[in-house]
């Protein structure tokens, strides 16, 4: 009994550590961004990427549904929240043929994000019923199909999306505060799910579906839960991104973005929340850093090459990603810095 309590207490402390580290990270970026709007933009981008990658990790890392369709949920979130928050005047010029009830209403940012997330969750539920029965490569291909469908719908549903044309005039609501709060929510939710009995079921289903089924775990139910929650959070991330960019088109939410997030996820480590936070931060900062570097020596395109090479090296030397399946134990990490050789068996799974 006391053992269990101790364990849950330890988990709780790890959660606090993770939230604390994210807070310190965001605070550091916020301080940098105070005087420099460019650094503020980078900070917000880091934050949004953290949300998106942690959400993606819930499905791809913890549950083993290797989804290539999450950018589709992002797109749903971006378009839904943007349509809802456009001013009535902008709607009449940019989207003249909206239905009347939609054309004359303007939502606040938070309700728009929640509606966008719920819509994505609903769609995830609908497509999840057939898709979550698939496994491995099949689910990757099927979710990729979902992404293509979303893309084609966005291009053709001109009444709501302006088709392929740039969707512009979105109000810039996204601030570092909004992003920060959603980071906390995302990490908290994903952490709680992973460390609940649902989470155990998810991990069991990922590692050995047959054994899990024998133990009475419903594969479909556990996968569906992860997929739906992850879709909700991805859509919120998409909404934050839309209100950060203020103009985007269906091409913004397609293959390039998909690969970008998958890469960050794999670099950070599938099945590690701290890995996702670290991966998103590193890759986003590194991308900007290299861009400024190539700018200073006028060798445009160099940053993409260096980044790609770095990815190859990381995959060679850290095949499970920087963090792997573990969580970073930050307190221990600090101790490790002062007294080398501390036993850290507890981190290994």
């Amino acid at each position: 009994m006391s053992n269990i309590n101790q364990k849950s207490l330890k988990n709780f402390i790890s959660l606090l550590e993770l939230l604390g580290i994210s807070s310190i990270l965001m605070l550091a970026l916020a301080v940098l961004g105070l005087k420099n709007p460019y650094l503020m933009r980078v900070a917000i981008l880091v934050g949004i990427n953290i949300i998106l990658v942690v959400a993606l990790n819930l499905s791809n890392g913890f549950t083993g549904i290797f989804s290539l369709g999450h950018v589709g949920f992002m797109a749903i979130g971006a378009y839904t929240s943007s349509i809802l928050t456009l001013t009535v005047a902008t709607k009449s010029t940019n989207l003249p043929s909206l239905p009347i009830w939609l054309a004359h209403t303007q939502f606040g940012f938070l309700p728009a994000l929640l509606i966008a997330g719920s819509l994505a969750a609903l769609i995830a539920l609908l497509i999840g019923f057939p898709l979550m029965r698939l496994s491995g490569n099949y689910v990757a291909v099927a979710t990729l199909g979902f992404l293509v469908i979303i893309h084609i719908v966005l291009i053709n549903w001109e009444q709501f999306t302006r088709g392929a044309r740039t969707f512009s005039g979105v109000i810039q609501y996204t601030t570092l505060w909004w992003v920060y709060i959603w980071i906390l929510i995302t990490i908290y939710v994903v952490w709680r799910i992973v460390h609940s009995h649902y989470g155990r079921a998810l991990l069991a289903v990922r590692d050995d579906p047959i054994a899990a089924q024998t133990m009475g775990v419903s594969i479909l139910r556990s996968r569906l839960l992860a997929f739906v929650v992850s879709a909700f959070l991805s859509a919120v991330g998409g909404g934050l991104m839309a209100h950060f960019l203020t103009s985007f088109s269906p091409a913004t939410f397609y293959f390039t973005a998909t690969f970008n997030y998958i890469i960050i996820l794999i670099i950070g480590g599938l099945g590690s929340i701290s890995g996702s936070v670290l991966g998103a931060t590193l890759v986003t900062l590194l991308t900007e850093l290299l861009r400024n570097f190539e700018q200073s020596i006028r060798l445009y395109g160099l940053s993409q090459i260096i980044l790609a090479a770095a990815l190859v090296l990381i995959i060679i030397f850290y095949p499970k990603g920087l963090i792997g399946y573990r969580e970073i134990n930050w307190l221990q990490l600090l101790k490790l810095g002062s007294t080398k050789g501390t036993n850290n068996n507890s981190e290994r799974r």
Partner: protein
Amino acid sequence: MKRLNLFFVVSLVLVITLLAGCAKKPAEANVIKIGGTYNLTGAMASLDVPASKGSKLAVKEINAAGGVLGKNIDYILYDGKTDSATNGSIATQLVNSDKVVAIVGNTDSDSALAIGPIAQKAGIPYLTAGATSPKLPDQVGSYMFLEPFGDNVQAAAGAEFMYNELNCKTAWLLWDKGTEYTTLLAKYWKERYEELGGKILLEDTYSQGDTDFSAQIARLRTLNPQPDGLYIAALQASDGGTIAKQLRDAGVIQPIVGGDGWDGPELVGVGGKAAENVYFTTHALANAERGTPKMKAFIEAYKKEYGAEPESAFAALGYDAIYLMADAIKRAGSTDSEAIRKALSETEGFQGITGTITYPPGKRVPQKSVTIIGIKNGQYTLAAEVTPEKIPEP
């Protein structure tokens, strides 16, 4: 130990980023800073790289001739990587870190819509060298200017040329529904062509990245009678070349007309002999033998600088855009952004190599004539210089 390394790397990256962000270039009082925003890598590179080379050449020439207001121009060029988030970042850097007085760049509406609002908010004039959506100035605001004509103008020119000169009374319309540019171009063309009395027998679409057009061509072949001409709104010259080749292979010999996206060496390169009897509307004929004297001088200078002829008219647009901005700064008599905006909006009769630029009162899309190029024996030849009689509303 491994983990310690990781921690070290993370801290190092953060510190370097901090330093990179804080590092300020020494302020030079004797230069005029103009920001440059082009997508030098990514999908837009085929248009943006020539345009950026044109811009850089113009800056070099102006500085060699003594600069503007006695100061040299410092053209700070950033790569937008054909990505909205990066484009937003570079605009923010130019406005806040580099403190430029104006921005010149871009050849597509997506990027212009990512950069425009940031320049608008900061009150810095932004002149796009090649984005042709006539809606841009209204979407972005009073600091957004177009250097080329709007798509409504070139679509109307294409429609009038097809109906009057090529005598095409019926047509087939194909457009790429994956981009803003092609969607608008097709819409404006259709409006003007039907207004003239032309009849569109069939409209068809494809998506960005398609390479097989057999389904569209099969539907075209079922038409009876066949259309007199074909209008195709494609994003890039390579798309145009591919479509023309497949059409000709299928035995379609009617004239084909396209927009300025077709302007590039890939059209003949990919299309080969199929590109005969193909016309497109563009900004200027960038040809050393058949261009205007000013154009010839530009091509000569471009060749000397880069060792090759301009890849497309976008090089000329990028070149003109810098001269237009320099002209506005000269007339403003100061580097104050508001004064430059005012001078730019009052531009009248500016002689560029892509045409004469005048901004009508209250408008920030110039009145310019449209060059129509036809392909004869694999060579670009001037087919017509058109000012459309009537232009569809943006």
